C-alpha cells in the first residue's frame, strides 16, 4: 500500500496547507482589487475556494489510487476520473453557491453567479494537475520499489551462487575416504580412529561456513593439511606434498574453502591418473597488497585428460570474481609435465 503523499508526514501536510493559505491570500487580493465584490464577499469566496481546493486535493488521491491504467485499463481510468471530477466539482460548486447565497448581498451574489466559470474552470485544472502529480508520484514510488527489489534479488542470486560455488563436497572423496578408513580398521585401528576425527574436522570446516566468509591463511592451510592427510591414506607414496609459506602471509585472509578445490584438482588429474609419485607444492607470498598462492603438481603428459578438467578451477575463478569484483584472480598454466594454479587474493 502506497502511503498518501500529503498525509504521510507533518512536513508535507504543513507545506500543502501553506500553499493553500497563500492561494487564499492571492485570490482574496484578486477579488478585492480586480472585481466589484465587497471585501467581505471577497474574503468569503477566497476562503471557500481555498478550503474546498484543500479537501479536493487530498481526496483525489483515492480516486487515483483505485483507478490507474495498469489496473483497470485506459478507458475505464478516463471514465472514472471524468465521473469523479464531475461529482467533486458539482458538489463543490453546489456547496459554494448555497453558502454564497446566504452570506453575499444580492449584487455580489449576481456577480458571482454571472462569473461562475471563474470558480469552476480552475477546479477542473486543479483536478487534472493533482491527478497528474499523483500519477507521477505513484510511478516513481513503484520504480523505486522495483529497483530495491532488483537489488535485493541480485544480492540473493549472488549469495546463492556463492554458496553453490563454494566447493560442494565431492562424494567420490567422501566415499573413498570412508573406504580407506574401513581398511585401516583392519590394519591399524588406532590410526582409523585418528582419521575419522581428521575427516570429521575437515567436514565441519567445509560445511559450517557460507560462500562469502573470509578465513585466515593459517586456518585454510590447517584444513588443507587435514585434506592431504586423508588423501595420503588413499594414495600413500603417490602423493608428496610440500609447502613454503612466508611468515607474513599467514595472517592474510582469503575466502574459506578456496584452496581445497585446487588440491582436489591436483589429485584428480595428477595423482589419480598416475602410478608414480606426484609432487604437490604450495607457495604463499605477499606482494604489495596481494596474497599470492601458487599450487603446482606434476602429471603424466602422455595420458590425454578426461572430462571435468577445469570445472573446479572455473568455480574458484567465479567465486573470486563475485567476492572481489575483479577478474583474473585465478591463473593456470600447463608446462611440460607441470600444472600450476596461481591465486591472487586482494588484501
Amino acid at each position, binding site marked *: 500500500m502506497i502511503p498518501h503523499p500529503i498525509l504521510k508526514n507533518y512536513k508535507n501536510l504543513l507545506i500543502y496547507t501553506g500553499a493553500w493559505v497563500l492561494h487564499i491570500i492571492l485570490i482574496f487580493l484578486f477579488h478585492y482589487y480586480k472585481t466589484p465584490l465587497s471585501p467581505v464577499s471577497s474574503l468569503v469566496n477566497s476562503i471557500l475556494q481555498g478550503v474546498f481546493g484543500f479537501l479536493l486535493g487530498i481526496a483525489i488521491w483515492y480516486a487515483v489510487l483505485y483507478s490507474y491504467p495498469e489496473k483497470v485499463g485506459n478507458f475505464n481510468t478516463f471514465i472514472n476520473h471524468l465521473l469523479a471530477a464531475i461529482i467533486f466539482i458539482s458538489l463543490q460548486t453546489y456547496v459554494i453557491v448555497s453558502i454564497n447565497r446566504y452570506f453575499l448581498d444580492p449584487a455580489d451574489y449576481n456577480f458571482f453567479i454571472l462569473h461562475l466559470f471563474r470558480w469552476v474552470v480552475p477546479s477542473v485544472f486543479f483536478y487534472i494537475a493533482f491527478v497528474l502529480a499523483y500519477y507521477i508520484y505513484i510511478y516513481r514510488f513503484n520504480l523505486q520499489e522495483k529497483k530495491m527489489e532488483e537489488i535485493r534479488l541480485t544480492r540473493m542470486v549472488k549469495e546463492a551462487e556463492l554458496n553453490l560455488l563454494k566447493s560442494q563436497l565431492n*562424494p*567420490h572423496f*567422501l*566415499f*573413498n575416504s*570412508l*573406504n*580407506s*578408513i*574401513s*581398511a*585401516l580398521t*583392519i*590394519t591399524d585401528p588406532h590410526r582409523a580412529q585418528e582419521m575419522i576425527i581428521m575427516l570429521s574436522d575437515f567436514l565441519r570446516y567445509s560445511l559450517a561456513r557460507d560462500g562469502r566468509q573470509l578465513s585466515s591463511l593459517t586456518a585454510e592451510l590447517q584444513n588443507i593439511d587435514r585434506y592431504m592427510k586423508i588423501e595420503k*591414506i*588413499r*594414495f*600413500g607414496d603417490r602423493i608428496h606434498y610440500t609447502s613454503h609459506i612466508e611468515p607474513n602471509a599467514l595472517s592474510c585472509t582469503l575466502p574459506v574453502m578456496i584452496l581445497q578445490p585446487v588440491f582436489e584438482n591436483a589429485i584428480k588429474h595428477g595423482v*589419480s*591418473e*598416475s*602410478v608414480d609419485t606426484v609432487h604437490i607444492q604450495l607457495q604463499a607470498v605477499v606482494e604489495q597488497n596481494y596474497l599470492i598462492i601458487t599450487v603446482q603438481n606434476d602429471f*603424466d603428459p*602422455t*595420458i*590425454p*585428460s*578426461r*572430462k571435468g578438467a577445469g570445472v573446479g578451477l572455473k568455480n574458484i575463478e567465479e567465486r573470486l570474481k563475485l567476492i572481489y569484483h575483479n577478474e583474473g584472480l585465478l591463473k593456470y598454466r600447463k608446462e611440460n609435465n607441470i600444472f600450476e594454479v596461481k591465486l591472487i587474493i586482494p588484501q
Partner: protein
Amino acid sequence: MENVKAIVIEDEEPARVVLREYLKKFPQITLLAEIIDGFNAVKIINEQKPDLIFLDIQLPKLTGFEVLELIDHMPVIVFTTAYDQYAIQAFEKNAADYLLKPFSEERFTSAIQKAMDKLAIRQNDSATVKKMVDYLSSESTLLDRIVVKTNSAIKVIPLDQVIYIEAQDDYVMIYTPSGKHLKEKTMKFFETHLPDRQFVRIHRSYIVNIDYIVQIEHFSKDTYLAILKNGTKLKISDSGYKLLRERLNF
C-alpha cells in the same frame, strides 16, 4: 567350483587391503595379481586369463570401462566403485555385480556367491559386459578420447589427433598423424559420440575432423572432395556437403 583364478584391479592400497582381507575367507580363490593401472590390467588379463576380476572404475591411464573395451578374454566381473550413479545404473541393468565402497564382508560374500554361480554354469559374461559397455557409451555424452590396441601396446588418442575415421565392415579405421588403428565400433557410434563442432560425417564411409580439412574441391557434377592436411582426398556425399556447409559456414 574349485580353484578360481582372480585378479584385483585397484589403484588404492587401502581398497586392496580390504579385498585381500575379505578374500582370505575363500581358499578356493587364488589371487593371481593385484594391478594398479589400466594399461597393465589389459595386458595381464589377456596374458593370465583369470576367471574373475575385481575392477575399479577410476584407474590411472584407462578407466575400468576402457579396460573392458580392450581385453580379448572376458572374465566374470565384480565392479568396485565409490560413487558413480550413472555407472550403477549400467550395472543394475545388465546384472553384473558391483560393490559400492565401502562395502561389508556380507555384501562381498554375496557378490562372490553370484560370481561363483556364473562360473559354475560356465556362463560367459562377455555378452552382458558388452551390452553394459554399449549401454554406457550410448548413454554417455561425448567422447573425449579414444582407446585402441596396437599389436601389444595400448594407445590413448586425444580427439585432436584424430584426422578421420573410415568405415570397414564391422570395424572402423581411425587415422592419426602417427598411424592408423582398427577399432570394433560402428560409424553410427562415432557419428553420435564425437563433438559435432569438430567432426562431420561427410560420407557414408567417412567422419572427418574439420580442423584437418585444407580445401574442398569440385570433383565432378554434384560431387566434391575434401583435401586434408596430409594430402588425403576423401569423397563427400550430397548430405555430407550440406553438413559441411552448415558447419564451416560457406
